[in-house]
C-alpha cells in the first residue's frame, strides 16, 4: 500500500498514540476541511512490543476532547482513580487519588496498548486522514533553505515511494528514525528493561489504582488495562530490570519469581507468580530509555511524544505528554486554520510556539521521573533517605499528597510548586535521616551517614531543579536554539520536490 498523493500538508510518521492523536487534533483544527494529512506506520497492525498504557486525567481529557474516549471505553479501556504506592509489601499503601487534584477531571484512563492503537487507528478511518501501514521513513528531503519538505518511505520489500509535505511530524517513538534522519542528536541512555506480564482478575489491594510496589531491585507496577467483554479485568504487571540483565531468556522468569515476586503483597504475588509460570514463550520486554528532550522542532519538522524526549515510566506520564503534544500542535494548527493554501499550515512561528510550550512541561516530567526512579530504587543512602522522606511527607497529610499528585499527573506546572515540593522532600529527608524507625539506640554514625547521603543527593539534584524552574520561567520571546543554529544541509537535496498538488 502506498500513499495516494504526492504532496500533503502534514505527514505524520508513526501511528501510535501520539501519531493518531496529532492526526485527529489537526483534523479537528482544519475547520475548512482543505488540508491533506498522511499518517504512516512501519508496522501493519500494531507495534509488537508492549508500551505505555496509563493516561493521567490531563491526557484523558485530551483524548475525550479528541473524541477517542468513548471508543476506547467501548473497547475495554478502564477509568482509573490514581496511584497506590507501597513502601514495602507489608506497608499500608499511600493513596494518591486523582480526585484530589481539583484542576483536572477526577479520573484517568488505562488501556491495553494494542487495543488503544487499534481503536485509535479505526477511529481515524472516519476522518479525512490517509493511513498507510507497512512503510518506514528512510530519507528526508529538504528545500533550498534546508527546510524539510518531503520524506521517502520504504516498504518491507525494499520498494520506495516519496511524498512532499509542508510539515513532517515524527511520532515514531523513542528510537525515532525521523529524528536520526533529521540529524537531531540525542543523549539517549538505556536505563534498563521492563518485563511485563498480564494477570486476569488480579486481586489489586486498591482497585482502580496503579500500584507501585517497592522493595525489590526496581519498582513493580500493577494496573488494570482492559475490561473484557465477559467482565474480567486484565491487569498489567511490570518489573523493572537492570540494564545488564543478570540472566537471559527463559531464566528471566525464575529471576522474577525469586527476586521480584516476593516483594508483591499477597494474594497478588501468588497470582503474578502463576501468570509468570503459565506464560509460554519469552516474557514481553521493552527497554526503558532516558532521553533528555532533544530540540523538538526543525523547520518543517516537529517531534512529538517519546520521539521528543522520554524518561523512565515510573510516573506513567509518557502517554499524557504525547497527548499534550497533540493538543498543543492542534492549537497551533487551529490558529493557522485560515492560512492561504500557498503557505505552510504549520509555519515556523507555529512550530516555535509548539516548541516553547513543549519545553515547558517536558523537563518537569523528566526531572520528576528521574528523581522518583532513583529514590524508589534506593541504591544509595541518599536515595533511600529521599524514599523515606517521600513516604513521611505523604503520610503528613492530604495536602502533601495532593500537591505531589498534581505534579506527578502533569496537572501542575508552576515552578513555585515544584521548588517547594523539592525543598519539602529534601527537608524531610534530612530530618528523617536522624530519626530511626525501629532502633532505639541507633548509632550516631549511622544517622550521620544517612543525613550525609540525603544532603548529598539533594545537592546533586539542584541542577535538575534549576533546569525545571528555568524551563517554566523562560520567556517565550527567547528564540529556541534551533532558530539560530544551522541544521544539516545537504547540497544534493536542496531542490524542492516536484509534483506538488
Amino acid at each position, binding site marked *: 500500500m502506498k500513499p495516494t498523493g504526492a504532496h500533503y500538508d502534514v505527514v505524520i510518521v508513526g501511528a501510535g498514540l501520539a501519531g493518531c492523536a496529532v492526526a485527529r487534533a489537526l483534523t479537528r483544527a482544519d475547520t475548512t476541511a482543505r488540508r491533506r494529512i498522511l499518517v504512516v506506520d512501519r508496522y501493519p497492525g500494531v507495534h509488537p512490543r508492549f508500551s505505555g498504557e496509563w493516561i493521567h486525567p490531563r491526557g484523558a481529557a485530551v483524548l475525550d476532547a479528541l473524541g477517542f474516549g468513548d471508543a476506547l471505553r467501548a473497547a475495554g479501556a478502564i477509568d482509573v482513580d490514581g496511584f497506590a504506592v507501597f513502601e514495602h509489601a507489608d506497608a499500608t499503601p499511600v493513596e494518591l487519588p486523582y480526585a484530589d487534584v481539583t484542576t483536572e477531571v477526577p479520573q484517568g484512563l488505562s488501556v491495553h496498548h494494542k487495543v488503544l492503537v487499534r481503536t485509535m487507528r479505526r477511529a481515524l478511518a472516519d476522518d479525512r486522514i490517509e493511513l498507510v501501514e507497512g512503510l518506514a521513513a528512510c530519507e528526508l528531503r529538504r528545500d533550498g533553505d534546508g527546510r524539510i519538505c518531503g520524506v521517502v518511505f520504504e516498504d518491507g520489500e525494499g520498494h520506495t515511494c516519496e511524498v512532499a509535505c509542508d510539515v513532517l511530524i515524527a511520532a515514531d517513538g523513542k528510537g525515532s528514525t525521523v529524528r536520526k534522519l533529521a540529524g537531531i542528536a540525542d543523549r539517549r541512555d538505556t536505563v534498563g528493561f521492563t518485563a511485563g506480564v498480564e494477570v486476569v482478575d488480579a486481586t489489586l489491594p486498591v482497585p482502580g489504582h496503579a500500584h507501585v510496589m517497592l522493595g525489590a531491585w526496581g519498582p513493580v507496577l500493577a494496573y488494570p488495562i482492559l475490561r473484557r467483554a465477559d467482565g474480567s479485568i486484565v491487569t498489567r504487571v511490570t518489573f523493572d530490570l537492570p540494564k545488564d540483565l543478570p540472566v537471559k531468556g527463559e531464566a528471566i522468569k525464575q529471576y522474577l519469581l525469586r527476586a521480584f515476586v516476593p516483594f508483591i503483597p499477597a*494474594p497478588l504475588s501468588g497470582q503474578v*507468580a502463576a501468570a509468570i509460570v503459565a506464560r509460554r514463550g519469552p516474557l514481553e520486554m521493552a527497554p526503558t530509555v532516558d532521553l533528555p528532550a532533544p530540540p523538538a522542532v526543525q523547520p518543517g519538522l516537529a517531534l512529538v511524544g517519546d520521539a521528543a524526549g522520554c524518561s523512565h515510566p515510573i510516573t506513567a506520564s509518557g502517554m499524557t505528554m504525547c497527548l499534550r503534544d497533540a493538543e498543543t500542535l492542534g492549537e497551533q494548527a487551529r490558529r493557522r486554520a485560515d492560512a492561504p493554501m500557498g503557505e505552510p499550515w504549520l509555519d515556523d512561528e507555529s512550530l516555535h510556539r509548539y516548541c516553547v510550550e513543549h519545553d515547558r512541561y517536558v523537563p518537569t516530567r523528566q526531572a520528576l521521573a528521574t528523581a522518583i526512579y532513583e529514590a524508589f530504587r534506593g541504591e544509595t543512602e541518599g536515595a533511600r533517605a529521599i524514599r523515606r522522606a517521600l513516604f513521611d511527607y505523604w503520610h503528613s497529610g492530604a495536602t502533601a499528597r495532593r500537591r505531589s499528585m498534581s505534579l506527578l499527573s502533569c496537572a501542575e506546572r508552576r515552578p513555585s510548586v515544584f521548588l517547594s515540593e523539592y525543598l519539602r522532600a529534601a527537608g524531610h529527608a534530612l530530618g528523617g535521616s536522624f530519626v530511626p524507625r525501629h532502633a532505639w539506640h541507633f548509632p550516631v554514625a549511622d544517622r550521620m551517614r544517612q543525613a550525609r547521603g540525603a544532603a548529598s543527593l539533594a545537592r546533586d539534584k539542584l541542577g535538575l531543579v534549576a533546569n525545571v524552574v528555568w524551563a517554566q520561567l523562560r520567556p517565550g520571546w527567547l528564540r529556541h536554539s534551533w532558530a539560530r543554529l544551522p541544521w544539516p544541509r545537504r547540497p544534493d537535496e536542496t531542490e524542492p520536490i516536484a509534483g506538488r498538488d
Partner: protein
Amino acid sequence: MLTAVPPASARASSSRTHGTVVRGAPLDQTLARLDAWLEPWRERVRERAETGSRRDRAEQEPPWALQVPDVGPSAEVLLADRLLHALLPAEREGLLTWIRESQHESGAWLDVHGRPDLSITALAYWALADAGDDRSAEAMVKAVRVVHALGGAQRANFEVRLWLAMAGQIDWSWLPAIPAELFLLPGSMPLSPARFSPWARGVLTPYLLIARAPARLHLADASELLLRRGNEALVAPRLTRPGLAGDLLQAFDRTVKLSRKLPRGPLPRWAQQRAQAFIDGAQQEHGGWFSARPTLLSLLALRVMGARSDDPRIARGLAYLRAARGRVLTPGGTVALAQGLLAAPMGVCAGLLGTGLLPTDAAWLVREQLHDRGPWQARADAPAGGWPLEPGARAHLDLAATLAVLETLAQLRPEDAGAPAAWSAARRASAVLLAMQEGSGAFARFERGETEVFMQRLPWTDGDLLAYGRDGDATHVQLTADALTRLCAVGLRAEDDRVARGIAWLRQAATRRDPPGLSTSCAIARAAAVLLPESDDLRVQTERRIRNRQRDDGSFGSLLDTALALRALVELGHTCVQTQRAVRHIMGAVEQADAGLGLQAFGGGFGLSPDTVDPTAAARHCVAALRAYAVAASAVTELRA
C-alpha cells in the same frame, strides 16, 4: 573423636540402604544414600516442630542434640545439680559416662579440635570427683597433673573460676569486678551491659547476682586443682593483661572491690533489682536464657536469690537444658549422654529440612520467624523479622540461622501452598539482614556492635567474653559473604552501596596477614561468583586458594571441606577436572561410610565453646554440593559414562 548418635531409625534405614541395590547413576546412588541417612534426622526436626509446644513429650523421650561442644557443659550440669537436683539417675550416669570415656590417655580432656584444654579438664575432673570417682585412680591423677602442667585451675577460664568461687574454693576477688551500677546505665551508654553480646549478658547478669548472694554451692573439694607455691600459698591469677594499662586496671578492680565495703546508698540494691528483672524478662518461650550456659547460671541465680525448686521459671529452664542433651557415641563406642549448647539450632534444622523440603516444613519455618521486638533491634533499624537461634527463642535474632532458613525457603516453588507466606517472611528477613550490617560493611550475627564492645578494649584477661568474636574473624567473614550471596539472590547488586560496602570489607578481610581458611574462602567464593566479574582480583585469588587445597585423593580435607569447596567451584562456574575428582571423592567416602561415621563435622558455637560438633553438617553440605554439580554439569550422565 566425638560422634553424635543418629536416631535409631537413622541407623535402621541406613542399614537398609546399604543392603538394597539403589538403582540409577552413581551420583544418584550417593544422593539417595545421603538422603536416606538424613531422612531420620529430618524426621526428628519435624517431630520437634509438631511437638514443640508439648513439653511433656520432650521430657518423655530422650531428646537429641545436633550440636555438642565438649564435656564442659556436661560437667557444669553435673556440678549445678548439687543445687538444682533435677537430673535423673540415668541422665547423671549418661553424662558421667560421656565424661569418663572422653578422657584422653594423657589424662586431659580435649576440645573439639583435639587439643588438651585446661578449663575442660578441670571441670571434668571436678565433676567426676564430685560424683565420687576415686581421686587416686590413675586417670584422675593424670588429670590433676595435666591441670597443674597447664598452670592450675586459677588460670582456667572465667567459667571455671566462677564455679570455684561459688563452691568457696577460691575468693571472689579472683574474678573480675563488675560494678553493679553498670546495670543502671541507659542502654545507649558504651559501658552499659546492653552493649555486651547476648551470651555475655546472659552469663554476667546471673554472675552479678550469684556473687552478691550469701548462698554457697556445696561441691566436692577441688583444692588439688589449684596450683600452690612451695609454702602452700595459692598462686593468685592475674585478671588483667601485663603492662601499665593492665596494672592500672588491676588497681581499679581492687578499688571497686574495696568500695563494695563502703556505704553506697540504694544504688547497689537498685542495680541488683535491675539485674533480677533482666533475668526474669530474658527467659524465652522455650524456657532457656539464650543458650545452655546462660540458662544454667540463670537457674543458679534464681535459686540463690530464693526461688524454690518448684518455681515455674526453674522448671522451664531445666526442661530447656534437658532438651539440649543428646546421645553421643564416645570414643570407646559406648552410647552416652552429652549436654549440648542448644536444644535444636534453627540453622541446622533449616539446613536439614532443606535437603528434602516439604510444604509443611516451610510452614513451620515461617511460623518460627521472629514477631516480637528484641534486644537486637536496639541498634538495628528494622521491624521484627528473621529467625532466632533456635525454635521458641522469641527475643534473639540469629543472622546465621536466618540465612540458612532463607536458603531453604528459596527452594519453594511458586505453586506451593505456603509460597506467599514464605515470601512474606523472606521479605521481612531481607530487611533485617540489611539492618544488621555494621558501618564497616560486615554483618553482625546476633546484635550490631557485637564485635566492638567498649569494655573489651580494656586489658581484661576475660575481656574477649564480652563480645561475640572480633571484627574480621572467620565467623564474621563467612557470615558477611553468606549475607551478600543471599542479598544478591533477592536482587541486590554490586552497585548498591550496602553491597559495595560489604564487598569492600570482604576484600579487606581477605587480604589480612592470615589468609582465610578453606571454609571461609568457599563462602567468599560463593559471594564473589554472584557479585563480582570473573577478572576481579578477590574472585581470582579466592578461587586459586581453594584449588590449591585439593589433595591427591580429590578431597579438600574433611568431607565437609570437600563439599564446601566443590560447591564453591561449581558456583564459580566450573565443572572442571578438580570438581569431578571432588565429586568422586565424596561418592567414595559416602560409599564407605557406615551409619554416618565419618560424616560428622564442626559447627559454630559461642562463648566458651566457640566450636561444636555438628553430626549432620557434612552430609547436608554434600547433598547441596552434589546437587549443584548435577545441575551445572549434567553430572549424572557424565559419571554414568
